Each structure stands twice: as structure tokens, then as C-alpha cells.
């Protein structure tokens, strides 16, 4: 356990927990942006620089802003007086704790975690680009198609409905 990892872990978990429990939707969006930044720091700590910066660009730059826009468009910015959690929240909490328990138990019991720190692998942007352009070029094209279809679909879904005459 290194000190940077502990700091990153505490900040990320605190921000994620704040995002899931705060009452004001805008505060939740800001807290989840903080959790995304913490995850990007974890990727950098794992010497995956490209993924760390992609995380900052896509999640902190785009998804968090998208969430803020959705909150403003649905008037979620005004804190409501109603309860934040659904009435059967204790059932959800029970499921959550069960899942967490199983995951942590599986991690601790696994033989894989005895692996010690190996020398940092090389993952330069050039190598990632080479891999994307040679070995993974078909998935890359499919993702491009998926993004186009998803964005056109999002625009069509969010378009104003036309009144039927």
C-alpha cells in the first residue's frame, strides 16, 4: 500500500459516496466529476497515461457537463423536499452490502492478488495507436458506427414531439 494509492482511494470513494447521497443534483454532478478525476489519477498511478487523459477528457469534460445540462433541463437543480431515497431503500442497501461482501471476499481469497509489483509496462500513445490501427481496426470502426448511431438516436429521442393533428 503506497501513500499515493491511499490518498487516491480515499478521495475517489468519498466523492462517489457524496455523489450517491447528496440531495442537490448539481452537487451530485460535481461530486461525481471529482470521483472521475480520482479514477483518472488511479489510471496514471497504474502507468496507463493515455487512458487517464482519455478519462479526464471524456468523463470530466463531457459526461459530467452532460449530466449538469440534463439536471438543469429537468429542473433537478432545485432541491426537492421529498425523500431522496425510494421507500424500499433498505432492500437496496442489503443487496449492495451483499454484493460488496461477495466481491471483497472473492478478492481476498483469490490467489491472483499475491502478485507483486512488476516493472511498469510500456504503453506509449504510439503503441496504442499502432494496436488500434492494425490489430483492433475492425472494433474501432464498429465503435465509430456505434457512436454515430447513438448520437443520432439521442438527438431524435430528445427532439420535441410533434403534436398529432
Amino acid at each position, binding site marked *: 500500500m503506497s501513500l499515493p494509492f491511499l490518498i487516491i482511494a480515499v478521495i475517489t470513494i468519498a466523492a462517489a459516496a457524496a455523489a450517491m447521497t447528496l440531495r442537490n*443534483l448539481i452537487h451530485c454532478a460535481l461530486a*461525481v466529476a471529482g470521483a472521475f478525476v480520482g479514477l483518472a489519477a488511479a489510471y496514471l498511478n497504474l502507468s496507463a497515461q493515455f487512458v487517464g487523459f482519455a478519462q479526464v477528457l471524456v468523463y470530466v469534460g463531457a459526461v459530467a457537463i452532460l*449530466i449538469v445540462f440534463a439536471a438543469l433541463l429537468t429542473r*433537478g437543480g432545485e432541491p426537492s423536499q*421529498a425523500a431522496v431515497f425510494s421507500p424500499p431503500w433498505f432492500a437496496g442497501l442489503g443487496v449492495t452490502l451483499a454484493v460488496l461482501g461477495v466481491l471483497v471476499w472473492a478478492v481476498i481469497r483469490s490467489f491472483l492478488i499475491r502478485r507483486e509489483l512488476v516493472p511498469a509496462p510500456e504503453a506509449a500513445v504510439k503503441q496504442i495507436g499502432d494496436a488500434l490501427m492494425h490489430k483492433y481496426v475492425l472494433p474501432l470502426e464498429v465503435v465509430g458506427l456505434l457512436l454515430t448511431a447513438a448520437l443520432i438516436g439521442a438527438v431524435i429521442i*430528445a427532439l420535441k414531439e410533434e403534436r398529432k393533428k
Partner: protein
Amino acid sequence: MTPLAGYLILSAFLFAIGLGGALTRRNAIIVLIGIELMLNAANLNFIAFWRFGDHPEALTGVIFVIFSIAVAAAEAAVGLALIIAIYRHYQTTNVDEMNSLKG
């Protein structure tokens, strides 16, 4: 505790927090944020296993996470568009009140 175990447990906590939010919150936008947190926890697992795996030079984990981030961005765009469309119809984002199809 080894570094790999630390990252896996951090990822397990993030997944549980996201799952808890998605299961218990009433606001649809917060439910979507919880799903994003779960996706990010999976990404952290990929990167941790890539970093401590046997063949990091294959770049499999990094490439998978790049594709996963792209898919998650598309999912967030479509999900928020759906929430806005539902809000326009029902004037609410409370998932407990969205209880009829073909409204």
C-alpha cells in the same frame, strides 16, 4: 496487502456505491450516475489486471478500456436523452412515478 488487491478492493467499493445509488435513489439522473460509476469500476479492474498481468505488452486491457469509455459515453448520451424525453412527457424524473408504458 498487495497493490493489485488494493485496486481490486477500491473497484469493488466503487461498484457497490454505484449499485447502491442506482437501486435506492429516486431521481433518474442519479440512477444514471450510479451506472456510470459501476462502468468505471469495471474499467479500473481492466487497467489493474493489465498492469499486474503476465503480458502487459499486448495492451489488451488498455484497448478494452478505451472502447469501454466510448461505449459508456454513447450510453450516457442516450440515457440522458431518454430522461429528458420522459421529463417532457411526465414532468418528473422520479423513477417511482414512471410506472406506465404507452403513456
